């Protein structure tokens, strides 16, 4: 098969293939040091200062990652 034809065949096969599975992260495990982060904050009173995990050193923090605002999860 001519190189260009082969490339075209490959492109067509890829286009016809089902959507590529989404890559999902593997969550950190218990015992691991929690990585720090610094992010813009928001509350019911509006926009706030940036918040870092290290701001809460010595306290218990629940970090709840979720998909999207105004969704169930």
């Amino acid at each position, binding site marked *: 098969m001519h190189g260009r034809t082969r490339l075209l065949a490959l492109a067509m096969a890829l286009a016809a293939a089902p959507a590529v599975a989404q890559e999902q992260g593997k969550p950190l495990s218990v015992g691991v040091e929690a990585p720090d*982060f610094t992010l813009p904050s928001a509350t019911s009173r509006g926009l706030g200062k940036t918040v870092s995990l290290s701001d809460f050193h010595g306290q218990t923090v629940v970090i709840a990652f979720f998909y999207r605002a105004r969704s*169930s999860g």
Partner: protein
Amino acid sequence: MDAYRDQYAKIFKGGKGVTLLAISTDADTALASWARDKEYPFTMLSDVGGEAGQKYGAFIRTPRGVVDNRTVFIVGADGRIAHVMAPFREVDATAYTELAEAIARIAR
């Protein structure tokens, strides 16, 4: 998020000794308007680009970009991860029971 709000006193001791940080890849303005509409009593953080989610392995890479995946981590006073709920089953009442019990155990 409504369940976190409605059970805030019970699960998070009303925020005394334990802090809830709710994180998504939404813009801070979107989170603020949602928090205002729903009167959420906790802080939300804007992880645009999903960097924090990727640090914690709590993300899904989609053709349209990275979004944070529903996962709950409890970080103890020593700065280490003390409890993980992955995935966090947002609509399952038993998930909140487990969360409350874990917080009660960890946040002394």
